């Protein structure tokens, strides 16, 4: 600690921005970089309740904190604030910046977050994988990586990993191209299935595990993407058609939940009681020219890409009989010229967290996208202003105690998504989020991949990469049996809920 210093009028310029954030008591050390053009050394003093932590940095300004001391500091400071004093050694002596603070919440966050690491904005794919980060440390391990070396016969993509409500005991993800199929992991064993039927558009895409039954709701989407030429956003990902499916894991049976021609249904999400399925839907008939053939739908929608909008819907489900009821409009975003995607119900069942943007459903490329919630007790909807940014704020996942959520945002460089953690208090207010800490904070800048589809989980994935590799490479995948659900809805008018037909 410098004994002599002069007071600066400003706060320290630090990266990442950890000022005034709320952090979980089990988070890894929030290492940061201090930027000062002339300083040659730095000291940071963190003062919590009855605990103090000192850390230093040389010219590079990277403040790395001792893990044990950090843990002690957070444990002692639960429910309180920690103040951070930063000192910089300039040629004319030490400078003390104005201190800043962060708060330590009482509630911990689920310890693990899984994500894909992929380059942003591409059609081709090469090396990618699903990784799991322990948020209480800096450990990152691959859950599954595709082939590192190019091989025409082996190249494949993996996506849409998902767990049953934060429990990795039930897990799934998709493999596309070579070795394609959906990988289901249960009881430590992986098996591959093929969700294919002449009535199914493609295969399972966006999944949601049922909280109590061994069921998964999938969307099935015919998706395409196009690249802008002169636009602030770079990519538009659009569905040409999409429906909802219900997959019975135990019986390996699949059926439609909703199968429509004029509506695009996507992003299913179960409520924690398993009695309601939330999803998004867009009524595209008015956007299409009736005289043109179906094969032109993509091109037609592409021309009107900023007019495709989705509402938030829900449909009741009776787990015992596996029957669906009548869809209900939850949020009519179309009426306000907005569009909703990725609904996620909080584990306590009170809030639906979703992304709202100006149009479309692939909000990960829409700068207008912000995080919103619907309070299911009061039916009120509001933006999570503290968590949002002018750039993309999208794909999100709840911690199992409903007090935290992790989401991806392009706010740092407008291109590469990074994961942010936000505290969500009991009143339903989100607090200023922070980027997940890295041992070397500069890694957030240097990493040339995006974090994609973050999923929080209470426990670590236990199945080994070798077992997954074996399942993917050595099995063809069992075809799921298509068994129509008598309560499935066909040709539903997604805007009005009219013209419902049963299968």
């Amino acid at each position, binding site marked *: 600690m410098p004994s002599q210093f002069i007071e600066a009028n400003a706060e320290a310029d630090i990266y990442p921005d950890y000022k005034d954030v709320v952090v979980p008591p089990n988070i890894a050390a929030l290492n940061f970089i201090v930027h000062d053009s002339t300083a040659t050394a730095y000291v940071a003093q963190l003062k919590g309740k009855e605990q103090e932590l000192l850390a230093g940095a040389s010219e590079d300004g990277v403040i790395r904190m001792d893990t044990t001391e950090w843990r002690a500091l957070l444990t002692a400071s639960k429910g309180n604030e920690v103040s951070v004093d930063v000192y910089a050694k300039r040629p004319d002596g030490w400078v003390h910046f104005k201190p800043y603070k962060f708060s330590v919440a009482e509630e911990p966050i689920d310890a693990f977050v899984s994500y894909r690491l992929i*380059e*942003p*904005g*591409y*059609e*081709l*794919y*090469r*090396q990618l994988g699903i990784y799991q980060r322990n948020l209480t440390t800096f450990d990152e391990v691959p859950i599954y990586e595709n082939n*590192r*070396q*190019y091989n*025409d016969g082996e190249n494949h993509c993996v996506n849409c990993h998902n767990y049953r409500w934060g429990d990795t005991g039930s897990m799934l993800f998709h493999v596309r191209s070579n070795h394609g199929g959906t990988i289901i992991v249960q009881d430590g064993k992986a098996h591959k299935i093929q969700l294919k039927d002449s009535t199914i558009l493609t295969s399972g895409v966006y999944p949601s595990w049922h909280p109590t039954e061994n069921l998964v709701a999938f969307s099935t989407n015919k998706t395409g993407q*196009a*690249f*802008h*030429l*002169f*636009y602030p956003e*770079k990519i*538009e990902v659009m569905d040409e058609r999409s429906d909802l499916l219900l997959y019975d894991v135990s019986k390996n049976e699949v059926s439609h939940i909703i199968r429509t021609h004029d509506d695009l249904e996507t992003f299913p999400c179960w409520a924690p009681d398993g009695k309601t399925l939330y999803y998004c839907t867009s009524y595209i008939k008015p956007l299409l020219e009736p005289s043109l053939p179906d094969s032109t739908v993509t091109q037609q929608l*592409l021309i009107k890409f900023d007019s495709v909008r989705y509402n938030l819907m829900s449909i009741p489900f009776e787990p015992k009989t596996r029957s669906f009821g009548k869809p209900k409009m939850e949020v009519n975003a179309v009426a306000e010229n907005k569009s909703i995607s990725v609904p996620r119900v909080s584990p306590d069942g009170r809030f639906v967290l979703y992304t709202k943007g100006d149009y479309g459903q692939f909000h990960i490329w829409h700068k207008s996208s912000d995080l919103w919630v619907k309070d299911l007790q009061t039916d009120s909807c509001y933006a999570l202003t503290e968590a949002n940014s002018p750039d993309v704020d999208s794909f999100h996942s709840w911690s199992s105690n409903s007090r935290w959520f992790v989401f991806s945002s392009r706010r*740092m*460089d*407008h*291109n*590469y998504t990074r994961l942010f953690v936000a505290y969500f208090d009991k009143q339903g207010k989100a607090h200023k989020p922070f980027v997940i800490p890295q041992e070397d904070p*500069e*890694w957030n*800048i*240097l*990493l*040339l991949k995006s974090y994609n589809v973050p999923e929080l989980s209470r426990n670590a994935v236990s199945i080994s990469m070798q077992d997954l590799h074996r399942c993917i490479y050595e099995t063809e995948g069992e075809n799921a049996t298509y068994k129509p659900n008598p309560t499935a809805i066909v040709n539903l008018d997604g805007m009005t809920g009219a013209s419902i037909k049963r299968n």
Partner: protein
Amino acid sequence: MQKKPAKQPHRAAPQKGTPQQKQKSSVGTFQLLIAKIPVLAIFFALAWLWAGWYYGSVFHVSREYSFWSSDARLMTFILSQPYGILRYIGRAMLQLYQYPWIGGLLMALMLTAGSWLTGYCMRLKGSWQAIQYVPALLYVAIVTWLGLDIFFEARTGFIFGIPFAALVVLCIWAIIICSFKPRKRENGKKGIQLAVIVVVLAAIIGFDQWKRPYVRVICQLLDMEYRQDWVGIQKLARANSTMSNRPMACSYAISLVQTDQIAERMYDIRLDYDSLYIHGIDWFHNNASVLYVPEGNYYGGFLESAQHACMEQMVMTGPTIRLLKLQTKCALMRGEWELAEKYLAVLHRVPFEGAFIKKYEPMVRRNDLIEADREMALIRLTEPIHDSFENQYQQPLFMGYNLLLVEGRSKQALINSLCVCLYTKLMPQFVERLEPLVGTTPPSIIMDGIMLAENKNAGLMQHFTGLNYRQPQLQAFLQATQQYMSDRPGYAYELFPKYKGYYPYYYFFGNLKATKKGYTSLSSSSSGVN
């Protein structure tokens, strides 16, 4: 007088002697001279010349198509590959090729050391000692054979990696020999060694000139493109005007756009596109678009598409210096400051990129500096006005978009569009876009295009000035080439030197699918823009 005979024996001393003896003596002197030749030093000098001068540009561009950082995290994509360490070391060494003579020096040292060690380890004697140069010469031959493949799609780690690995093996071998059976190295027959070196190197360079002449030219052009040496590109392309390939055509077109000559000098080079020996990451023959599409889009004003093209390549091969630099420039022009800073932060970790960083880092958050940059200011003039999607156009985009251009932000954008229409020989589209030039004297290529379009658009010419003086030239051309019209692909190559630079030649004889260097068959009449 009598003393003379007595002196004969003395005169007949072995040094001077009879003709046979003289011959023997001169052979001996020659052998003595040969024996004194520092063959290894000569090999080193020749290797340095080859690696620093002759092939220096190829290795220099290989470095641009590579990426290396001491930060192992950034190199995971290479380290996790088979032979990752070797490729990592190879890429590190390749960095020296920022300065080809220095990179060449390292390469020559490695090849020379490898040769010496080969001789030492294999205990080569006499004539057999020439074998010690075989591995190094074989390496040179393989590199020459591979041509563009040595750097295409992330194989750059092997350029130095393989000789390095060989050197390590030889060093270990030599140490073992030294430890257990030390011996003095013997001098072999240097004449044979020298002959082998000279003959094999000459053969390799002969092969390169015969089968891969475009490799050095393309690399020199790319290097000049990175240095924005537009005049150099034009000189080199015109000096090799009969050589024809797309990377060269694109570099040349970029240089013309940057010097406002695209509508004057585009057809100074052949545009028939001979096949290149180049293979993708899948080892299948590749169309080499990777070499020019990102830059073509960037210089055409399609910044997002340039970013897209860069990203696709980064996905497939990992980052490269060339892609990171282009991404930086695109991000700066799009005002994506944090993104530019990100790429610059990565480039900060690459050796010898100080000059680029020094030039572009100050442009972050400084639109005035970007507008003051000549290259960027010119690109700004051809950016699209309205948004649309890439997949609405033919590829490559910098061609496809200009074919459909309906509104441009500058005269340059219009000229580019007209030139693309002429290049693709789509005269209706060309005529549709002439309106803004009515009443003016268009650039020469556009004038020729107007005259050719006059056939189907009677009266078109009268809307422009300055065309009359070019009309006799067109008439003369049409008359002179009448006899060749029945087999245009067949005569294209033969007629090129005579009509080089003249658009009507290109219109009738250039860029026909069947046109090939030396093609003479009359049987093929298929034609169309390739």
